[in-house]
Structures are given as structure tokens and as C-alpha cells.
């Protein structure tokens, strides 16, 4: 089985989907000839030609709108928004159009498309290359939201997203494009090749949307995480010697609520981890769900580890980032008594 980093796995997913379905077209800023600033679409134009993989003007609203028109025609657009921080000019098209067209036409028109975008910080990207805006999309009925945390998942989830009949917002944690990250920014980076999930099956496979994965089984605590924070959380519970069950949500919408309930009912404690700012983040929704559905199994209040309610500060990136210290405090709190 070939070993891939997340970029290579995502590139492979594009090729698999584009070979299988000639209606799949890919475009975005710098996504054509050059293959994208993170090189996820590299070589697609060479293999599939200029009309199936091409550069788009710097116009996220135009990119999403063009994708709407293409989906209405019968194509399956897979568009790249260069950074999640740039997605806002396309937000009206996503919220008012992409998300609602199936509903407002009672299924006469559907919007099968994938809007891919690298998100999250930890790369010294400053406030315009570091944001985690997933909760702005999980709040919108009609959208699915997917966030992979490994190369193997990235490929299988992207192929599933492209084949899905509904629009999928696919956020890629760019901090772990090239290797998993345990939150210790002062330590050398581990490449994906050292990680088991860098073994990516060849050819076509999917990982179903809406299925979480238990990445570490445990009995004392349930940790809910996605994207980069899966790896930060895994490292933290190991360092603290806690027998935690770590669940990688993989899909935020639709959410695998059964996996969450099962685990919390077993452990009686729950810690939720997100990189995004705290207030109204997706962790708040998870916390409410756990409280509503597992209250009588809980032995401690549900705890959240999040970014601060501030923009992402460039030089103070590691002050913002919910790293090992914030994890440690939260773990101590949720495990107390």
C-alpha cells in the first residue's frame, strides 16, 4: 500500500473521482496549471485537460456561483477556496443558494458539489490564513461538513463527498497536510510516513460521511475532536496517562451521534476539543447534545478546550492555539472527583 501525506492523498482522491466520472470538474484560484498553493490539484490539468481542471479569477463568490450553475447543468464541481479565511465572499452563494436549492425546489434541482478549503492555524498564517470557520457552515441546513484528520481518511472522505448527492464543505487541516501534529510546536515535526494512517489504499474507496472513528479506546473519559485537534488530544491524554476514548468525528454534519452517546454512556465524562474560537463554536453544540442526551451518565460537567475568542494573532499564534497546556488543565478539571 502506498504511503502518502494528506496532500498526496487528496490529490489521489481527485484523480480517482475524475477518472470515474467525467462530469467532475475542478477549479479554484491557482488550482489549474500550477495545482494549487498547497499542490492538492497538482497534475490534474495535465491528466484531465484544461476544461476539467482550471484556474479561476480571485472571486470566491464567482467560484461558488459558477459551481451552482454547473451543478444545475449536471456537472459535479469540486472547487478549491484557497484558504478558509477567503470563503466569506462566497458565503451568500453557499448559504442562500447551494444549501437551499434542493429544499426550495422540492428536489427539482440539487447541488452535488464539494467546496474544499484548507483551514486552521499553527503555520504562522496570521489572522487571514488560520481561521476555523466550520461552525458558520454547520449552522446552515442543507450543507454537510467534513474534516479529515489523516491521509487515509482524507482520500476516502473526499471521494465520498464528491459522490454525495448533497453539497459538502470539506475543510482540510493544513497544519497536518505534511505530518500529524501533537501540539508541541517546539518539537521536530513527524512526517506522515511514520503514521499508520499514511497507508492509503490505491484506487477507489470511500469512508462514509456521518461515521465517526474511535481512534483510541478507553474507559475513563470521552474526548471529541476533529482535524488537527485529534492528534493534539491523543498526545495529551497519553502524556497525562488518562485512559481516554478519543473519537475523531470526521463528519460534523451529519454527526455520528450514536458513537458519541455510546462512548459517553460508557465513560461518564466528556471533553470537547476545537481550534476555533470558543463562543458559538461547534464544541458548544456538541456540549449541549451530550448534556441533553447523556446527562444521567455524566460524572462531571462537560468540558471544552478551544481557541480564544480573539482573531488569530500572528506572533502570539501559540498563545491562541489550544495546545498541551490548555489540554492538561482541562483534563485535570474533567477528571477531578
Amino acid at each position: 500500500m502506498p504511503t502518502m501525506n494528506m496532500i498526496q492523498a487528496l490529490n489521489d482522491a481527485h484523480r480517482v473521482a475524475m477518472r470515474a466520472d467525467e462530469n467532475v470538474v475542478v477549479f479554484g484560484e491557482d488550482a489549474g496549471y500550477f495545482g494549487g498553493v498547497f499542490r492538492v490539484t497538482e497534475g490534474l490539468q495535465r491528466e484531465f485537460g484544461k476544461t476539467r481542471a482550471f484556474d479561476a479569477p480571485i472571486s470566491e463568490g464567482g467560484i461558488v456561483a459558477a459551481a451552482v450553475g454547473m451543478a444545475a447543468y449536471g456537472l459535479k464541481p469540486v472547487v478549491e477556496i484557497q484558504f478558509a479565511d477567503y470563503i466569506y465572499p462566497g458565503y451568500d452563494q453557499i448559504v442562500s443558494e447551494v444549501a437551499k436549492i434542493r429544499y426550495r425546489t422540492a428536489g427539482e434541482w440539487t447541488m452535488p458539489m464539494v467546496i474544499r478549503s484548507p483551514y486552521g492555524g499553527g503555520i504562522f498564517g496570521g489572522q487571514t490564513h488560520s481561521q476555523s470557520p466550520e461552525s458558520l457552515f454547520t449552522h446552515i441546513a442543507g450543507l454537510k461538513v467534513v474534516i479529515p484528520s489523516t491521509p487515509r481518511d482524507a482520500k476516502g472522505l473526499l471521494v465520498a463527498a464528491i459522490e454525495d448527492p448533497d453539497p459538502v464543505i470539506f475543510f482540510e487541516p493544513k497544519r497536518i497536510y505534511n505530518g500529524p501534529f501533537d501540539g508541541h510546536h517546539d518539537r521536530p515535526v513527524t512526517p506522515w510516513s511514520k503514521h499508520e494512517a499514511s497507508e492509503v489504499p490505491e484506487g477507489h474507496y470511500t469512508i462514509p460521511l456521518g461515521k465517526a472513528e474511535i481512534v483510541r479506546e478507553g474507559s475513563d473519559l470521552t474526548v471529541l475532536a476533529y482535524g488537527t485537534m485529534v492528534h493534539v488530544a491523543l498526545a495529551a491524554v497519553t502524556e497525562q496517562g488518562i485512559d481516554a476514548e478519543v473519537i475523531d468525528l470526521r463528519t460534523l454534519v451529519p454527526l455520528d451521534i450514536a458513537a458519541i452517546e455510546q462512548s459517553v454512556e460508557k465513560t461518564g465524562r466528556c471533553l470537547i476539543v476545537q481550534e476555533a474560537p470558543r463562543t458559538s463554536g461547534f464544541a458548544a453544540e456538541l456540549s449541549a447534545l451530550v448534556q441533553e442526551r447523556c446527562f444521567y451518565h455524566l460524572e462531571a460537567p462537560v468540558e471544552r478546550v478551544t481557541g480564544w475568542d480573539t482573531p488569530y494573532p500572528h506572533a502570539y499564534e501559540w498563545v491562541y492555539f489550544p495546545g498541551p497546556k490548555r489540554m492538561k488543565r482541562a483534563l485535570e478539571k474533567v477528571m477531578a472527583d
Partner: protein
Amino acid sequence: MSEKDPAPLKPNRPKLELHVPEPTFRPGDTPDFSSLNIPAAGVAPRPDTNAAPTETHPLTTSLVRVLGEDHKAVGAWDPKVDPDTLRKMLKDMVTLRIYDDRMYRAQRQGKTSFYMKATGEEAIAIATAAALDRDDMNFPTYRQQGLLIARGYPLVEMMNQVYSNPGDALKGRQLPIMYSSKEHGFFTISGNLGTQVPQAVGWAMAAAIKGDSRIAMGWTGDGATAEGDFHSAMTFAAVYNVPVILAVVNNQWAISSFSGIAGAERATFAQRAVGYGVAGLRVDGNDALAVYAAVKWAAERARGNGGPTLIEFFTYRAEGHSTSDDPSGYRPATEAKAWPLGDPLERLKAHLIALGEWDEERHQALHAECDATVRAAQKESEKLGILPQQGKHDIGSVFEDVYADLPWNLVEQRKAALEEGRD
């Protein structure tokens, strides 16, 4: 610097002034459009459909007009439409006007929540439908219901949508008049203005990617040209030489804001084509033959890979923006009557009479026939129900079509809604 400590004035410099555009006439004024530059019919040159965009650019400050004062078709733009097609267009326009009147009245009678008429603008959608191929695609605004009528979408279906009754193909989810019909090449209307313009470009890009021969037309009003979406649409259309027609229906008013608030004091809407390097036409929108000729021209150009055309249809919104609007609060009540380009329906009728292909008697008969058709459709639709009776019979349907499949949260919420419904 604190708020108490403003920047010192520099006495040698003029004080900066903000210009807030103001329409020429307000309520109480006597509208006088004699200063409006309206070229005579027949004078506008007609470039080849494969001409360079720059050859069209003089036309962006002119006005393509075909029907002259004598109601005859003149000049290079005369599309030489056969009388049967003209009569079909007239019939569609009569039907649309009656339909609009009936539905407006239905709203006033409390049978629905909202309605929007196309009065004074009927020629634009209807002559466009006649000029396009039947399978070309439209991304319309809320004032192109004429496209549906011209393409034979059943009036009963339209009314069912307006009443949100059990016959409504959209299951009572959309505001009245936000029709959708794939079969009639009519994309679902959005209440967020301007969104459909770049979508039309995307559809036409797809047609080009697939080597199709169908083209798309994207519609906007004058007001929504100010949206970023209009700029995106023009950019994408120009960059990829997209087989699309982009239409700005300049009816002078965006609710209460005159076209100057969207930039019309400085340049025509058609002139925006110049900056993007695409073909542009400015057309008398109340002249059905000019509309037909311009759309034919742009469609032929698009089909021959000559690229996009921006067309400004110059017209006047003869009535309120919608049933929620009262134009007497911001413009003279006599403005529509004073509008120098006349009534599009009357102009087409006069043309047919001038051709010897029509007369008053036949017109009265046509009007009676269309009126009977609309009334019959209304009766049939109202048998299925009107809005005040709706919203009870299929509560579970609220949760369908959010996604292809129902996720667990919607299953739970549907159950709760059904329980509420029984309480």
C-alpha cells in the same frame, strides 16, 4: 487622536462633499422626460454577430429601436418576424398582464401573501422567449414570469405556487412568484438579488465544457447590478468567453431607489460591457421587436463561440415593486404615463395593425379569450386551496429535501413537529 480633537481644517482646500443622487422628479412634480436622449427607431447600426466587442460599444450609449412612430419596423435591427410569431407574442403579453392583474387582486383579497407584477416590462421576457431556443436556459429574477407563460408553463401551476396550495410543485416552501421549472428552462428564483447572474455564467460554462449547443441567459434588475455577483458574472463571462447573455432590465426603480443609486448617473448599464471587453447593447425594452432582435443577435453570437453579450433593456416599472410597496411615496403618480417609450403591449398591437395583420375586433376577442383562460385557471387552482388554508396538511414535508436523506436530527425534529401538530 481622540474624538474631541478633530483633524484641523486645511483652509486652502475645498471642503469635501458627498454626492447623494436624487431622481429628477419626486411626488408632486410633473414628470418631463423630454431631456431623455431617445434615438429614432432604425438608426442604430447592427454589427455582424461575430464582430469584435468594440464594434458594439457605440451601441451601449445609444438605444436599439425597431418600431417607429408609425408603428412600422425599420432599420438594420428589424428582425423580420413572421405575423404568427408576433401574434403569439401579443397573446403571451395579454395573458401575462391579465394574469398579473388577477394575482395582484388575489393578494389584495387575502388569498396569498405577496405578489409582483411585470406591468410595462412584458415585452422583455416574452420577446426573449420567442428569440431563444426552447431548450436554452434562463436564470431569471422575479419579474420574468413572462418566460414561463411564453414557454407554455401551465397557468394553474403558476397559481398553485402563488397560493402555496397542495398543487404547488415547490411544496409551499417559496414566497409567491419564486417559480422553478427545469422543464421550461427556468432556474429557481432567489430572493437574494443578483445571485443568479454568475450562476447563469456557470451553467453556460458547463455547456461549453460539454460541447453542448445550448446557451444560458442570466437576468438582473438595474438595482442589483451593484452586487458583487454582477461583477463576478461579468468577469467569469469575459475570462472564459462564455456562451451567455446577461440582461439588465433597467426599469428605473429598485423599490424606492432610482437607477442613479446603482450608478446610472455616470454611465449606462450597457456601458459596463466596455470595461470587461465584451459585447454590449442598449435596447428599448418596450419595443418587442428590438428585444427580439437583440436577443437573437446575442444568441447567435454565443452559439458561434463569439462570447457573452451584456444587454441593457431600457424600460419603466409601471407599478409598485410588489404588493408590499406604494410608489406614491417616492415618485410622481403620473410618471408611468409620462414615460416616453410607451406601453409595450400597445406598441406591438399597433405594429400588427399597421401590418394589416390585426384589428381592434380581433384584439377584443383575444383579450376575452385570455381573460377566460386565466379565470378558468384561477378557479381550478383555488379549488386546490389558497394560502390561508395552507401549512397544516403535510407537516412532515417541512423536513424533506433539506438533504437527499433525512439525518437523525431531522428525524427527531419531524417527530416533535408532528407531535406539536397534534397538540
